[in-house]
């Protein structure tokens, strides 16, 4: 009987340790600790070229992440890339003449959308389903190298 009690305790400790390991992974290893499932609103922007941007790429203002890209599709009429992003609803005071640009973090890092707040001339803010008109496309490294080489060759 005594032996069985020790066994019970050890099994209990084992199960507790396993569950603790799972929690450790959830909070320390993965992004669940910073995950917010709060309210979001959707904003879209049209780019000539969205480069290596992916669904779930970050959207940031002044380097702070405020949302994620939710879909990327091609407009069949204009052949432009339509990028929709979900932005945390607490950031509801972005002027509607803000610029959206696609940047790369580091030389070889992943691409993200940076929103530069505009002067707010109209006084309106970005809200659900608004469109960002001022955009600058992704910088494609190969195009830049190609242009640079062409310039060199012309000189």
């Amino acid at each position: 009987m005594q032996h069985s009690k020790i066994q019970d305790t050890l099994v209990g400790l084992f199960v507790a340790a396993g569950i603790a390991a799972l929690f450790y992974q959830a909070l320390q290893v993965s992004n669940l600790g910073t995950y917010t499932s709060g309210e979001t609103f959707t904003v879209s922007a049209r780019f000539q070229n969205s480069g290596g941007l992916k669904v779930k790429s970050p959207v940031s203002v002044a380097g702070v992440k405020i949302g994620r890209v939710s879909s990327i599709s091609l407009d069949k009429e204009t052949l432009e890339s339509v990028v929709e992003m979900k932005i945390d609803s607490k950031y509801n005071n972005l002027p509607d003449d803000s610029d959206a640009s696609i940047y790369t973090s580091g030389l070889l890092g992943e691409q993200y959308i940076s929103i530069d707040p505009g002067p707010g001339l109209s006084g309106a803010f970005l809200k659900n389903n608004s469109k960002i008109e001022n955009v600058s496309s992704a910088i494609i490294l190969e195009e830049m190298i190609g242009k640079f080489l062409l310039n060199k060759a012309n000189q």
Partner: protein
Amino acid sequence: MLNFFTELGSATREAFGKIGRGTFFLLHALSGFGYVGLRPRLLLKQMYSVGVLSFLIISISGLFVGMVLGLQGFYILSDFGAEESLGVMVAASLVRELGPVVSALLFAGRAGSALTAEIGLMKATEQLSGMEMMAVDPVKRIITPRFLAGLICMPLLAALFSAIGVMGGHMIGVGMLGVDDGSFWSQMQSSIDFRHDIINGMIKSLVFGFSATLIALFEGYDCLPTSEGVSRATTRTVVNSAFAVLGLDFILTALMFGD
């Protein structure tokens, strides 16, 4: 020539016969869940011998695998000046692949072989027939608790393996090689997704636990009741579990991560 065809035919029949017996065995074992639910002490005893006794080998292996990943990853990543991504590399390889797979292989070697030998010997010494004589169903009484114990313990062991491995990688990367502590964790947290990586890893280990335990129990139950038969069954358990785990891992990885 005729002999060859006779042997081929009997080998084929034997192979399909084994699959059929295995399926009936699985269904029989599953039908004992209610029986074990009424007698939780049977399950607890098996969780002790399958899970608690495997804890040490799993945690020490996890620590060393994590430490090796830290070292190897650092040497490769520092060639590209990307040491800060060490945390991502260690955590992604542990959580997605090495945690479930290596702990399942260790589990097959440590617990699976023991299960086969135990049940094979029970069969050889006619303990199973003895139970039947007493109108006790040996599958429900002996097999089901062990099966359930394997099913419960495997994901827990894999979680422990990954968690301890990440700590080992952190110890080597940050403590010994001087990777920045903040970027080690923040890059890891920004690229490892809870549902996509950790939950999928857990599903993998559940599948591996199911197949490794089923193979171990079936080989023991189906072995020739002689000392040689038990020894062969134990070998088959380890070999077949390794094949099953690695083959299933390929299929599961293709299904889960090939977006």
